[in-house]
């Protein structure tokens, strides 16, 4: 190839950063060695050193892994201790690999490597199948918001290149990953040792029709992963070489900025226009992430490091309270109410943790009660800052949604945090949370509850039906609504049909979203109750905590918990919408009773074993209970 073409090709190449995670013997280092050697990126003296070390350590074959383990103790122990960065390139792309050890105690390294990655490769040993560690790797990739994940099922040579083995592993992992938020997930069967499907397809797995690992790495589309919408320009440094020049230096965290743009400086709220984008190579027409630029404004403004320039009308949250997922990275455990430094964008502020809501078990994603977080543990926290920061949810903006926690005494980096959507955060801290605006007071009306009772002829109540999908909640609920209305009771049913499409349309089915879903339904039920109506709700509402929260919102007096107790076998048999079938096949990720828990009510007001009851009889039991409680009048 002529040199001009070679130079042009090099010049046009883009950059993909990826991280590799695998357990101790999954062959991660071998895989990287293979990628490097097959793409001809290992130098001969490095190969020679590897051969020499292999002999010295009595390895039978030349150990590609020795190329990776940089520290002496790593080579001796045959394990990878720390994150190592590797570089290789193909004509199309340059790659930076953050090679991280996969063992539990190295979660912090994995998180570190993942924080800057465009893509993650999760390695699974075909002989061992999906291990808890493989799940942890998937969870961390999702937690750190890596948009692309490749699951490489390795050591296919040791399972006779069996398609069946591969498919089984894939199916199991698909089911697990369905609970997580990964935008682009793909599976490739490989043998890092023999080279199959790493750089070249090889002849051993004709049944696999997809791309090889390298060709996938080369072609995965990453340009759209950037946020080019919300302008966030954290001021990093004010450049004032002389009295005539004042430039605001920084890296465009997101969005696009042009000369002439109106900008607002947070937190002061002062506005100005961009005069120019100054660079060594002349003024620029526009700047976008992740460019490091210098902005000059039309007006003299008091702006300093830590401030943020944005477009008016699209500004981040300015807040002293954030909800975040936290990865603890220090031997010294987490402390509540202790001051730490929080480094967020170009700001360092003091802050302390007010609450640890739960710890996540990354192996099964269960939330556990916890008093503290130890090294490598992950939990959800409320963080209070001594000064406000300008932030966005990590899911929307990695730069303005991430922070590190620094110990005041030791100066070590002790944790990494990812800010959770504040809209959720507002709703989620239970019904007891203070209204966001301090200026909201309950206005006492002129109409009392007894006035309404007199008008309608009955008391308000919320009949909270809970049970598995297919247990008969909606059928009973609709029947009940009809019975009551026929009897002259003002009754209204809330179910998925009228709630999911409007009020809660943006909520999904994660535990978080389910919680918020239930909270909103409870708030609506309470308002309807205040208006004097009887409300029937028909939602799975699988978590006890969430139902208890609903009870507190609605009030003990009005809340009637009804457990529609139908055995799962029967629900599955009925399966009116075919959901169980889809859940079993892995098509639906998180499904109550199949892949997500249902926590039975301990002391419901009513338990309806629908296996033995007709719809009529079930409805009748509820009506009888309401009469007995004096909600609706006795007959006659």
């Amino acid at each position, binding site marked *: 190839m002529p*040199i001009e073409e*070679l*130079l042009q090709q*090099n*010049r046009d*190449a*883009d*950059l993909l950063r990826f991280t590799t995670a695998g357990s101790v013997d999954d062959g991660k280092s071998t895989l990287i060695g293979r990628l490097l050697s097959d793409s001809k990126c290992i*130098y*001969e*003296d490095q190969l020679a050193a590897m051969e020499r070390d292999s002999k010295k350590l009595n390895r039978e074959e030349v150990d590609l892994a020795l*190329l990776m*383990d*940089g*520290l*002496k103790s790593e080579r001796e122990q045959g394990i990878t201790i720390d994150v*190592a*960065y*590797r*570089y290789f*390139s193909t004509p199309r792309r*340059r790659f930076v690999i953050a090679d991280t050890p996969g063992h539990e105690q190295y979660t912090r*390294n994995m*998180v570190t490597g993942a*924080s*800057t990655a465009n893509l993650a490769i999760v390695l699974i040993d075909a002989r061992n199948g999906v291990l808890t560690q493989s799940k942890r790797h998937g969870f961390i990739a999702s937690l750190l918001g890596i948009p692309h994940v490749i699951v490489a099922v390795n050591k296919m040579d040791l399972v006779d290149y069996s398609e069946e083995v591969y498919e089984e592993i894939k199916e199991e992992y698909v089911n697990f990953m369905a609970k997580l938020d990964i935008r682009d997930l793909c599976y490739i069967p490989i043998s890092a040792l023999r080279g199959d499907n790493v750089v070249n397809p090889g002849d051993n797995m004709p049944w696999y029709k997809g791309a090889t690992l390298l060709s996938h790495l080369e072609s995965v589309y990453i*340009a*759209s992963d*950037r946020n*080019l919408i919300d302008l966030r320009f954290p001021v*990093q440094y004010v*450049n004032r*070489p*002389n009295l005539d*020049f004042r430039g605001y*230096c*920084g*890296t465009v965290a997101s969005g*696009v900025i042009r000369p002439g743009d109106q900008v607002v400086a947070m937190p002061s709220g002062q506005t100005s226009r961009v005069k120019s984008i*100054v*660079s*060594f190579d002349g003024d620029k027409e*526009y700047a976008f992430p*992740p*460019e*490091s630029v*210098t902005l000059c404004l039309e007006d003299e403004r008091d702006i300093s*490091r830590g401030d943020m320039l944005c477009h008016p009308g699209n500004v981040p949250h300015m807040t002293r309270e954030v909800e975040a997922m936290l990865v603890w990275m220090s031997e010294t455990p987490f402390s509540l109410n202790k001051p730490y*430094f929080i*480094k967020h964008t*170009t700001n360092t502020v003091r802050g302390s943790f007010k609450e640890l809501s739960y710890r996540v078990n990354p192996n099964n994603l269960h939330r556990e009660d916890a008093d503290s977080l130890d090294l490598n543990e992950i939990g959800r926290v409320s963080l209070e800052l001594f000064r406000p920061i300008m932030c966005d949810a990590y899911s929307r903006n990695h*730069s303005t949604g*991430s*922070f*590190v926690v*620094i110990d005041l005494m030791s*100066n*070590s*980096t002790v944790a*990494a945090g990812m800010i959770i959507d504040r809209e959720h955060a507002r709703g989620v801290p239970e019904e007891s949370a203070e209204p966001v605006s301090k200026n909201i007071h309950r206005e006492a009306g002129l109409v009392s509850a007894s006035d309404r009772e007199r008008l309608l002829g009955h008391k308000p109540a919320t009949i909270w039906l809970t049970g598995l999908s297919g247990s008969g909640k909606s059928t009973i609920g609709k029947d009940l609504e009809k019975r009551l209305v026929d009897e002259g009771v003002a009754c209204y049913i809330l179910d998925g049909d009228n709630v999911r499409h409007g009020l809660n349309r943006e909520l999904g089915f994660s535990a978080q979203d389910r919680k918020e879903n239930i909270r909103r339904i409870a708030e609506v039920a309470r308002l309807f109750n205040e208006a004097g109506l009887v409300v029937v709700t028909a939602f799975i509402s699988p978590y006890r905590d969430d139902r208890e929260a609903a009870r507190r919102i609605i009030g003990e007096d009005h809340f009637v918990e009804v457990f529609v107790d139908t055995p799962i076998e029967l629900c599955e048999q009925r399966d009116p919408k075919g959901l169980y079938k889809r859940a079993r096949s892995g098509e639906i990720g998180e499904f109550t009773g199949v892949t997500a828990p249902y926590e039975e009510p301990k002391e419901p007001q009513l338990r309806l074993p629908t296996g033995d009851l007709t719809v009529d009889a079930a409805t009748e039991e509820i009506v009888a209970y309401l009469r007995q409680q004096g909600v609706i009048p006795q007959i006659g």
Partner: protein
Amino acid sequence: MCAEEKKTDGEAYKITNLEILEAESIQIMREVVAEFERPVMLYSVGKDSSVMVHLARKAFHPGKIPFPLLHVDTSYKFPEMYAFRDQYTKDIGADLRVHRNEEAIAAGANPWDWGTVKCCGALKTQALLTALKEGGYDAAFGGARRDEEKSRAKERIYSFRDAHGQWDPKNQRPELWDLYNSRMNQGESIRVFPISNWTELDVWHYIHLEKIPVVPMYFAREQEMVTRGKHLIPVGAKTRLLPGETSEMIMCRFRTLGCYPCTGAIRSNALTVPDIIEEMMVVRDSERITRIIDFDQDSSMETKKREGYF
């Protein structure tokens, strides 16, 4: 939204490998200048230093580089390096400081009699530590790259050093996103590696695109050399020929520049930067093979770094 804004993913917002690396390096340099009291840039006159200095000029444009450049001089650099150093730093208006371990030089430190380990220890590591201490520098930029050597692959961007300048690879601060922890106790310092993620090819390519001046010794010419083991060593005023050795004129160039007794050349016909890039695309040895000092003991780079080398 105007029509122009709609072309989000197209060519308008394409960013290449070198542009990303450049932005990252500039971000790191500005962060250090914003957060540290007395930064300094270690300037070794080689190609990586040239790139680093060029990036610093870009980072603080239209101002000058807001920190001094420090050359830790072993006294064994090639004459052309000294000439280049003085001219280039003058041309760009940089504040150059030179530090030498005069005591060791006076004591006759040299690799032939002292051995490379001891010689490097005195003239490089010790000299560096003294210079940093005397200057009161709390942050020192270095042009090391992670792709150079295995132990460097595990180095952080902000490499934390204790009061004795020592590196503890097992007790490094985790480094996430682009958030660097600059907190330190009195007496501690950091080394900062803003071009950590650049490879040798990136460096040359950037030199080509940005037309960055480098020491002419990187280009091939016919010069008097002696072959010693696998190494091609230049014959200069002080290089001693061992019994049985003869020198010859060889067309060669230097891939890295260090001290003349310990830096080998490679046979090459590369006369221009594109020639070098072309050569690199086919070269089969990593660049540090021309450094004799890296082979002097097992895990020698790791050992040097632990002791305070950068």
